[in-house]
């Protein structure tokens, strides 16, 4: 693999950038693999990477029904954070944050990790109290958290509505300074390039349609490109998990819902941080191109359509305008949607299944991008060693039977409200 560096950049500049190696190659399936990963999203690619790197398993196929990075990994709003209150989440996502900090070096691919800080705004004393509690819990787990007052916020986000007439006055905020963003496509491509160079086959337009299970053991998968033998299968199919699980006679505590996001036309630097509105569901950041990247609520009914409906967008952007009144002057450039694997407690599932050799990675809701490295890392361990990694040991499926739920927001099982 050709390494990317300042020298290779200069060298290729002289060649008119015509001699760059392709980053990764599309493969056709072989008859058999040691491990088959279903889904070339962030989690599938990262899992293959840590299987190859940490566990020296390289005879792997990553099967993708569409194109690499065409799922949620290429549709999210790229927010990274570990500002969780509960220990299982805090420790897991904080491990992930540490992985983000040198992911560009690790992958030799600029994932544009930008620790610009994420600010959650509070609009009442009660909300501020809740944020203090969360901030303190974060600190106890070694996660960076600072409380911001109204005056500090005025300096940091001057365009927010600090007027006397604001419908939801800003009382203060909770900030995780190391939170931020990263470039999503670069994450997919960075992992893809590395695994391909280690011998992993990336097979696009190859949909898994069924499984070959004998005596409770996986023998292979059926795909639109023929049958493939394997002793281990990892499911990383996000919003499509229930459909594949059904083929394995599993019913999961998951619903599929569409989440939309949008970007505005590009403008000059306007917002230095990621900011979330506390009186509803709206958040935004500004991309390096200058677009405002905005999102909020799920559309609110089960959906497998990777597109949403206007009422939700209108609702979300109304909140945006309440927070930053001058957003009302911007034109929306693009909107899109992705299918979320909404779990019943809002937390993910990384586990073995009742079938020997079938492993499950799902339930990421609208927050799985930030988990990409740590999810891949713990899931690779689960697949290679046939045991759950300690860091993800609270994310097991049986918590929905034992009652050990991790409902960070206390929302209950109405997943579409979250």
């Amino acid at each position: 693999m050709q390494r990317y560096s300042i020298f290779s950049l200069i060298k290729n500049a002289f060649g008119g950038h015509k001699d760059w190696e392709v980053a990764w190659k599309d493969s056709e399936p072989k008859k058999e693999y040691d491990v088959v990963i279903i889904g070339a999203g962030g989690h599938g690619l990262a899992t293959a990477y840590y299987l190859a790197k940490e566990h020296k398993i390289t005879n792997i196929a990553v099967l993708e029904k569409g194109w690499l990075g065409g799922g949620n990994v290429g549709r999210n709003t790229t927010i990274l954070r570990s500002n969780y209150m509960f220990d299982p989440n805090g420790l897991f996502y904080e491990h992930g944050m540490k992985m983000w900090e040198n992911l560009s070096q690790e992958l030799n691919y600029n994932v544009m990790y930008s620790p610009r800080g994420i600010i959650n705004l509070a609009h009442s004393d009660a909300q501020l109290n809740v944020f203090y509690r969360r901030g303190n819990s974060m600190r106890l787990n070694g996660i960076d958290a600072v409380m911001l007052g109204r005056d500090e916020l005025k300096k940091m986000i001057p365009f927010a509505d600090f007027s006397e007439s604001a419908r939801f006055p800003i009382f203060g905020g909770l900030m995780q300074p190391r939170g931020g963003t990263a470039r999503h496509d670069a994450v997919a491509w960075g992992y893809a390039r590395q695994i391909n160079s280690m011998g992993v086959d990336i097979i696009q337009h190859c949909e898994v349609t069924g499984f070959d299970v004998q005596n409770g053991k996986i023998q292979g998968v059926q795909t639109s490109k023929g049958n493939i033998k394997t002793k281990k299968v990892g499911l990383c199919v996000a919003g499509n998990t229930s459909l594949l699980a059904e083929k394995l006679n599993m019913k999961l505590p998951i619903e599929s819902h569409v989440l939309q996001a949008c970007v505005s036309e590009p403008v000059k630097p306007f917002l230095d941080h990621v900011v979330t509105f506390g009186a509803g569901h709206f958040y935004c950041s500004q991309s390096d191109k200058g677009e405002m990247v905005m999102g909020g609520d799920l559309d609110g009914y089960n959906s497998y359509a990777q597109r949403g409906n206007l009422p939700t967008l209108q609702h979300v952007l109304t909140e945006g305008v309440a927070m930053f009144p001058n957003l009302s002057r911007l034109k929306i450039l693009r909107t899109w949607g992705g299918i979320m694997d909404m779990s019943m407690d809002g937390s993910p599932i990384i586990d073995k299944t009742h079938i020997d050799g079938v492993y499950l990675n799902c339930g990421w809701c609208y927050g799985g991008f930030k988990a990409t490295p740590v999810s891949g890392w713990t899931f690779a361990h689960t697949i290679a060693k046939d045991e759950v990694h300690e860091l993800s040991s609270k994310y097991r499926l049986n918590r929905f039977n034992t009652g050990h739920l991790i409902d960070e927001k206390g929302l209950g099982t109405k997943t579409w409200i979250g």
Partner: protein
Amino acid sequence: MLEIKCPHCGSRSQNEFSYGGDSSVKRPELGKEVPDKDWDDFIYFRNNPRGKHSELWHHVAGCRQWFKVLRDTSTHEIFKTAKLTEEL
């Protein structure tokens, strides 16, 4: 924009409704000894098909009645709506 036909009020825009999820889940019978598993199934496990889905909606900004909707989860097409007491 979805247009949903409330069985009591007729067709209205999506904005007037809120969602209630899979209509096939059944609450375990009251006053009976119910195994934990039945409660788990009732609370956490839902149908999640790609295609026809029977679900509950609430005409929250209208007559405030709950009713059933048969809808396609990939095209969002609505085939049929019915009162709670009716079959879809």
